[in-house]
């Protein structure tokens, strides 16, 4: 089907300002991605998948500026024993990063190996992104595959004790960055990946994760400290037999954030947990779009998303569980809930189940509600001031999502962040 002219024009306008890297092992992959972007066109308001989120500022030729935010708090994950890797406005900062090596771990910078003719990433880079275009198109991820010239290629061959922490910093009000990371976990390997900090005025990030059998991949990220953020991120994860993938995202404010997470449970008895806690106070927009495919028997998936919205904030959740015909004994769970702290905020949810196997247990629920007045009165009658009581109930609401973080110390850090945010945004 021919694309509408407006879409072709918008796509051409965006592509005109970008240079396609043409050297090394990734050249063909990038050329193919560019062809796919042209065929699909970049997303527009009329696309069903973008019904609740306006992609205009994500695809404009020029990124809108975003003021650098002066946060008073210390950066997230400070104090954690970790391997730190710093990106400033989407560019790797070698001086401030730790040594890119560790036991059972190889980390390379995409830009550093771009000119090589051969690299293991040749069979990985863009593979899951391309696979993730069916049944729903995700052209912004394809754009990223074509043009991202920085990012990390992480190969994990065994257990890695220290988390790898990608720290993003935003210093240039007009930065427009794309990063593409590939994480490959061999059989039995394990890694915790942390991400935090504002990345750029406009940010497009793809993370492709190949999780081999019996491997464990924990991913925790925080998005915040940049109120004028415009970000689109994609996680593509393929989970092998008896492997575990858990991802949690904390999102605070930001003009526009769309986080897509696409997961395939490809081997028997795999586990995938995808969770998010969002807090928005103001003219902010958070979109979590999740697509989980069960393609093996006895797998478990959980989607747990909680959003606290006030003062004009909008939350979006599009979540799908697709159970293929042979994926018997699937255990699928999905919940998306919003706590609306006033009448000016809104939550738009589209939960979907599509099941082709007959012996499965899948459930989904979605709710929007206000603070429980009875509980609030109960707390106040015990002497807890109304602001603190509201925070306590709000944190309790977010708790189910935060509980998805396995490491209790990291979970406590997230709770602390949320507490700080709630106190700063108290009425």
């Amino acid at each position, binding site marked *: 089907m021919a694309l509408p002219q407006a879409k072709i024009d918008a796509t051409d306008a965006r592509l005109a300002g970008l240079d396609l890297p043409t050297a090394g092992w990734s050249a063909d992959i990038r050329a193919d991605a560019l062809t796919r972007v042209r065929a699909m066109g970049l997303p527009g308001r009329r696309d069903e998948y973008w019904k609740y989120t306006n992609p205009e500022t994500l695809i404009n030729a020029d990124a809108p500026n975003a003021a650098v935010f002066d946060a008073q708090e210390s950066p997230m994950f400070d104090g954690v024993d970790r391997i730190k890797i710093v990106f400033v406005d989407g560019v790797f900062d070698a001086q401030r990063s730790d040594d890119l090596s560790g036991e059972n771990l190889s980390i390379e910078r995409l830009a550093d190996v771009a000119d090589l003719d051969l690299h293991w990433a040749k069979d990985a880079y863009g593979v899951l992104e391309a696979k993730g275009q069916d049944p729903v198109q995700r052209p912004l991820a394809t754009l990223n595959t074509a043009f991202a010239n920085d990012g990390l290629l992480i190969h994990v061959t065994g257990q890695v004790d220290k988390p790898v922490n990608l720290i993003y910093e935003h210093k240039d009000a007009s930065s427009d960055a794309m990063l593409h990371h590939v994480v490959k976990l061999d059989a039995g390997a394990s890694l915790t990946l942390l991400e935090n900090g504002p990345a750029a005025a406009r940010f497009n990030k793809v993370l492709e994760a190949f999780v081999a059998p019996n491997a464990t991949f924990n991913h925790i990220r925080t998005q915040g400290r940049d109120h004028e953020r415009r970000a689109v991120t994609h996680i593509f994860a393929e989970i092998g037999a008896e492997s575990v993938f858990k991802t949690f995202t904390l999102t605070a404010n930001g003009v526009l954030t769309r986080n897509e997470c696409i997961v395939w449970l490809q081997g028997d008895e795999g586990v995938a947990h995808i969770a998010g806690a969002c807090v928005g106070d103001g003219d902010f927009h958070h979109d979590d779009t999740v697509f989980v495919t069960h393609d093996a028997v006895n797998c478990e998936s959980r989607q747990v998303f909680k959003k606290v919205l006030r003062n004009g904030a909008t939350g979006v959740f599009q979540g799908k569980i697709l159970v293929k015909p042979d994926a018997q004994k699937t255990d699928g769970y999905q919940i998306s809930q919003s706590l609306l702290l006033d009448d000016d905020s809104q939550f738009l949810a589209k939960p979907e189940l599509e099941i082709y196997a007959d012996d499965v247990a899948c459930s989904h629920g979605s709710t929007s509600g206000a603070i429980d007045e009875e509980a609030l009165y*109960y707390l*106040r*009658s*015990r002497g*807890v*001031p109304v602001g603190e009581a509201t925070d306590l109930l709000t944190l309790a609401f977010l708790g189910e999502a935060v509980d998805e973080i396995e490491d209790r110390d990291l979970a406590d850090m997230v709770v602390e962040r949320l507490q700080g945010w709630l106190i700063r945004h108290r009425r």
Partner: protein
Amino acid sequence: MLEIKNLHVKLEEEDKQILKGVDLTVEAGKVHAIMGPNGSGKSTLSYVLSGKDGYEVTDGSASLEGEDILDMEPEERAAAGLFLAFQYPVEIPGVGNMTFLRTAVNSQRKARGEEELSAADFLKIIRERAKTLKIDADMLKRPVNVGFSGGEKKRNEILQMAMLEPKMCILDETDSGLDVDAMKLVSEGVNALRSEGRAFLVITHYQRLLDHIKPDVVHIMANGRIVKTGGPELALEVEQNGYADILAEAV
């Protein structure tokens, strides 16, 4: 301690007068009981005193140790020393019982300009007080009242009372939903808190609670007013003859 004068209260949302001139004085160190038929306004009185939304005071006053409480927020009334043990304790998923209690205790201390209790001190005190009420560590860790049995919820109310050490305790049908053993346990908890500086207002339908918590004064409430006041024998009279005679007499 507690002085209620000519208190008139109506529901905010409908033009329905519930309390029609309640006069009641509870002295420090005393236990007063309020009995009365359903719909007489007993629970409304306890809600209005603790500051629940949805009620409008149209006339009269209520003061705690001489201080007008009706203009205070619920948390201010609590910090001033008022405590209501709920007839139906509220379940709060996601908030641990221990966190809740510690937040409450320290909020009150803060409001009164006292130093907050350290985690260690708090733990020591709560363990000791929970033990007397047969509340185990698991119940302290669970979310507030979630999955608690009726008896556990009421014991939890008394534990809160023991931890917050209020001056004026209002017990709204604390005996409802309790079996004989649980009632005994709860009553013992209440009796242990009786002291010269503390007063109780016990709202109940049944004399049997008053066998365990012996009142100094018994009031009968009907149609939004206190219609009769007497000693403990008044409760026995109600138990034997019902309210009909007393109400007829009051009219």
